[in-house]
């Protein structure tokens, strides 16, 4: 575990110096902070729409950060050959990949945390009280980010940064809309083989919409604890499986 933590720490230090991290975090925090200005421009803008927008910024910003950082970590190390002295140590490829994932996840977590803080301050300014459900919603956003980061890390073990970023982004969009969009396509497909392909894609893609607690936050709905536990288990299991697939891929790769 110490070795995994060392790789994670080095990755965190590296990622926190990247321009894309600073730009995205600042941009999302600025969008969240400036969303309050909408009330000046448009009449009757309610707090609910502000919460919706801020929550979406946080989720999307976190996902984009995870993709940007996860897609470049391992390929950059291999290309710049900084991976050689590390892998020459008694560290397994699994430890290396897991360490890179955790480094990326912690970096994105810091970014999402900054966005959540800006969001919390905005809600406090409007409601003059702190909504504790924001912590739960942020936690599940982090879980979604973990899944996306795991997918990006796994694909990056075999593909270039550009391909990894594009494919992970497509998986993210598809995973966010799969129940409604893909589910509808399966129902409408007449051909058995086409339907079979859609069904396979449907069951392989992550169900990212289940991490979205935006509606509950906006409307102060009660989300059953059993659902939250199931989603947490699902997120952890999917992340672990995707990471292991990436580790298996990297174990065979020549560096």
């Amino acid at each position, binding site marked *: 575990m110490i070795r995994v933590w060392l790789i994670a720490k080095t990755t965190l230090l590296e990622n926190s110096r990247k*321009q*894309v991290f600073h*730009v*995205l975090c600042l*941009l*999302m925090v600025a*969008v969240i902070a400036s969303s309050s200005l909408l009330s000046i421009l448009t009449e009757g803008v309610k707090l*609910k729409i502000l919460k*919706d*927008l801020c929550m*979406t*910024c946080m*989720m*999307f*910003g976190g996902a*984009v950060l995870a993709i*940007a950082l996860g897609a470049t970590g391992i390929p950059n190390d291999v290309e710049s050959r900084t991976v050689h002295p590390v892998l020459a140590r008694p560290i397994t490829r699994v430890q290396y990949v897991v360490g890179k994932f955790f480094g990326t996840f912690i970096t994105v977590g810091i970014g999402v945390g900054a966005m959540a803080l800006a969001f919390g301050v905005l809600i406090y300014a409007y409601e003059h009280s702190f909504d504790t459900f924001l912590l739960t919603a942020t936690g599940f956003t982090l879980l979604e980010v973990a899944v996306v980061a795991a997918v990006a890390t796994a694909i990056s073990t075999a593909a270039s940064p550009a391909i990894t970023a594009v494919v992970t982004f497509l998986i993210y969009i598809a995973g*966010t809309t799969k*129940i409604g969009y893909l*589910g509808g396509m399966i129902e409408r497909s007449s051909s058995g083989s086409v339907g079979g392909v859609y069904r396979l894609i449907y*069951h392989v893609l*992550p*169900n990212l*919409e*289940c991490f*979205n607690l*935006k*509606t*509950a936050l*906006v*409307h102060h*709905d009660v*989300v*059953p604890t059993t*659902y939250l536990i*199931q*989603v947490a*288990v*699902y997120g952890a*299991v*999917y992340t672990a*499986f995707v990471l*292991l697939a990436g580790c298996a891929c990297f174990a065979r790769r020549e560096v």
Partner: protein
Amino acid sequence: MRVVRLAAVAMLSCVTSPALCHGAQELGHHWDSAAYLGEMRLQVLVICCTACALVVGSWIVRAVRKRQAGR
């Protein structure tokens, strides 16, 4: 190139965030939806079965190799 890439990512984020911003009525309560819960449970089951199959498979392969090496 780096500036162009950063600008593209920033533009994409600004444009897509509001686009993904649905009204509350559209989404509904997916924690009550059987489709969401069923899909999650199925995926967890498939992942656990695959993992078990891989572990059992690797044990069998290792045992066979050990036996062949012993001969």
